[in-house]
Structure formats: structure tokens, C-alpha cells
């Protein structure tokens, strides 16, 4: 992957975060005890609000390490009190080796938090790039439909009607998107995932509207016995009649309804992204330190 493509696709930023985090962990390992204890207290707060799987073990590890460091450097202020279980077996005086172990433990906890956040960032970037690939494929299918209609000699009014159905579906889909966006978390950077979803919505909803406007009249002509047999046969066999909004204006309503059908898929995509964003938000450094 070329360097510019890495930045454009967002992988470069995730890689930069990973590198920055490794530097930060090295710095933390070499920090003076007071700074290390303050950083450990900060990580404790980050862990307490996070969704990290092994959060409790990490908290315990952090509290044991902080207690050793605090005891060996004679610091007591700012140390978050550890539960009795975390301190079991810890009896001062501690040796110089204990200090090094405590530093390593604190670095490990920071590494676990950083890794968790980097994984979430990578998941957001991957989801966005996957969605962009889906858009390209969907657009290619749309292009093939256009080419097929032209080569099959579709009448121009029918083609215009099909475009109208597509546009109505796309508009309804975008309105629905506005509604879904009201519940999104905007404070966390999503690496362009929301913008990709915005591009995906009209294409998908437009195609769904077009499909609905075609399938429902065809099916109703086949299954409704009250319709005159001859008329039904004519209607079902003639795509030009189905795609004539002057004769069948109600098909516009059908297109609008079917434009909403991909909302389940879109909201599922959105909820996945929201989970990653909420994971990132929950493991952020708390505002009050």
C-alpha cells in the first residue's frame, strides 16, 4: 500500500496512534514515581468507566503496582485505595526489584488500554473501507441496470419513471438517515464512517425503491383474482406499463415505502459503529482528574 493511500484510507493514522502509544508506554516506564502514580490513578479512572474485557484484573494489577510504588517512594496522596483482595500478600518493606515489577505492571496496563483503543480505531477504519467497497459494487450494479435498460430499448418515459422511483427512494432514505443520525455520538472521531454511510444510503434506498416499484405491481397482478385476467396479463407483461407514473401514480408511494426498507441494514451498520465509538469514549481520559 502506498503511503498516500494509507493516509487516505485511514490506516496510516491508526498506525501512527500505535507508534505514539508505544513511545508513551516507554516514557511511562521511565517516569519518576510521583508521575507514575498519577498516571496509574488516571488509568484507574479510565478502566473504571471502560468496556475492556479483563477490566477487573487490570484494575487489581494497577492497584497492587501503585501500592508498591507509593509505599517504596513514601507517597500517599492521590493513591486510590485498593480493595483488600488487591493488597493480599503485599507487605512492606519492598525491594528495588519490586519497584521495577510495579513499573512493568503499570506499563502493561497502559499497553492493554492503548491496544484496546487502537483496535477500536482499526475496526472503525475497516468498517468504513468495507462500506466504501460495497458502495463501489452497488454503483457498478446500478450502472449495469442502466446499460441493460438502454440496450434493451426501454422507452424514454419508462426510463424517466424509473429514475423518479430511484430518486424518491433515495430521498426517503436520506430523511430516515437524518432521524437515525439524531442518536449518534458525534464527539468521537469515526474516521469518515458516517460520511461513507451517508453516501451508501441513497444508492441502497434508491435501488430498493426501484425493486419495490417493480415487484409489487407484478405480484399483485399475479395473485389478485379480482383483476381482469386480460388486463393483468397485459400489466404483468409490460414493464413499460409498470414504469408509467402517469398511469400508475400510486407506484410513487410504493417506491417511497420501499425506500425505507434498507433502514434495518443501515441502522445495524450504525449500531456497530456506535459500539466502537462508545468503547473509545468509555476508555478516554476522564475530564476531571
Amino acid at each position, binding site marked *: 500500500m*502506498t503511503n*498516500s*493511500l494509507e*493516509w*487516505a*484510507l*485511514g490506516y*496510516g*493514522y491508526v498506525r*501512527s*496512534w500505535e*507508534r*505514539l502509544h*508505544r*513511545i*508513551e508506554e*516507554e*516514557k511511562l*516506564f*521511565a517516569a*519518576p*514515581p510521583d508521575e507514575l502514580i498519577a498516571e496509574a490513578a488516571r488509568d484507574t479512572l479510565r478502566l473504571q468507566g471502560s468496556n475492556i474485557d479483563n477490566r477487573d484484573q487490570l484494575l487489581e494489577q494497577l492497584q497492587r503496582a501503585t501500592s508498591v510504588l507509593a509505599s*517504596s*517512594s*513514601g507517597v500517599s496522596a492521590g493513591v486510590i485505595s485498593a480493595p483488600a483482595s488487591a493488597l493480599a500478600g503485599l507487605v512492606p518493606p519492598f525491594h*528495588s526489584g519490586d*519497584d521495577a515489577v510495579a513499573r512493568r505492571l503499570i506499563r502493561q496496563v497502559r499497553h492493554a488500554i492503548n491496544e484496546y483503543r487502537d483496535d477500536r480505531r482499526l475496526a472503525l477504519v475497516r468498517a468504513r473501507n468495507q462500506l*466504501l467497497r460495497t*458502495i*463501489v459494487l452497488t*454503483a*457498478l450494479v*446500478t*450502472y449495469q441496470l*442502466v*446499460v441493460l435498460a*438502454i*440496450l434493451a*430499448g426501454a422507452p*424514454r418515459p419508462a*426510463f*424517466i419513471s424509473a*429514475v423518479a422511483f430511484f430518486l424518491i427512494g433515495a430521498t426517503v432514505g436520506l430523511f430516515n438517515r437524518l432521524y437515525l443520525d439524531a442518536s449518534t455520538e458525534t464527539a468521537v*472521531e469515526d*474516521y*469518515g464512517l458516517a460520511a*461513507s454511510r451517508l*453516501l451508501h444510503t441513497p*444508492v441502497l434506498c434508491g435501488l430498493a425503491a426501484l425493486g419495490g416499484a417493480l415487484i409489487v405491481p407484478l405480484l399483485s397482478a399475479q395473485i389478485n383474482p379480482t383483476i381482469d385476467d386480460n388486463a393483468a396479463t397485459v400489466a404483468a407483461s409490460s414493464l413499460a406499463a409498470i414504469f408509467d407514473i402517469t398511469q400508475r401514480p400510486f407506484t410513487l408511494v410504493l417506491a417511497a415505502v420501499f425506500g425505507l426498507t434498507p433502514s434495518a441494514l443501515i441502522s445495524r451498520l450504525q449500531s456497530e459503529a456506535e459500539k466502537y465509538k462508545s468503547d473509545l469514549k468509555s476508555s478516554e481520559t476522564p475530564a476531571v482528574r
Partner: protein
Amino acid sequence: MEIEPVAEPAEPPAPPPAAREPIRRSNLMTGLIVTAPVGTLVISVATGAIFILGVDGVRAIVAGLIVGGIVWLAMGVAATSFLQCDRANRSIHKELTTRLEAMSTDPLPAAAERQLYALAQELGVSLSSVGSDEEHRRLITQLQNPPR
């Protein structure tokens, strides 16, 4: 812990003129890839619009491909201006550089400092206030004799 002396990072050498053409071509390819989702849609829209305007059959398809392709190419060329790390996503770049600058003001182990310089160079940031030799010595002393 072993702390090595820090070497000043060299400025990245400018690419020779002969190497610029492949870079430009690679950037254009990247621009086309990045704009592919919109570009493919534009081709469909152009083909449909040309057909509605009165061109029939294969001629409409070819004309749509040409018009849509030109628009896509123009978008790809325009996108090449937004491929550098500081322009592809400004807010993340800003966040990263702020963190880098904040970190560079504190003393760092030599290996970490080298990595910091390398990362800063990749992100196009010049770090002015990186820990001095005096700070390094203080850090070494502190690590060897931690305060009790």
C-alpha cells in the same frame, strides 16, 4: 535500563526529478481509488442523463462512460491534493501532532525519543523542544537512584 545518546534526525531527502513521475502516477491512482465510490455513481448518472437527453443505444453508453470517466478523473486529480497525512484527515492529524508536541517537552528514553522523531518526521511536524542532554542525564540519575 540502557539509555543511548540521541542522534539528530536528518531531513528527508527530496526525491530526484526522475522519481517524481512514478510518485505522481501513484498519487493519481490513489486519488482514483479514493474517489471510486462517487466516480462509479457519476458514470451511471451521466449515462442515464445522456440517454434521457435523446442519445440512443450504444452511443449513450459510450458517451456516458466518456463524460463520467472525465468527471471521475477530475475528481481523482483534485483528490491528490488531499492525500498527505496533514490533509487526508485534519482533525486526527491535529490530535496526533498535539500529543506528539506535548510528549516531546518531557524527557524520554533515547530509544523512545528516536521513535518520536521518526513519527514526527512522518507526520510532517518539527519538534522544537525535545528533551536536552541535561534532562537525559537527570532521567538516567533518577532511574538509577529512584527517590525513596
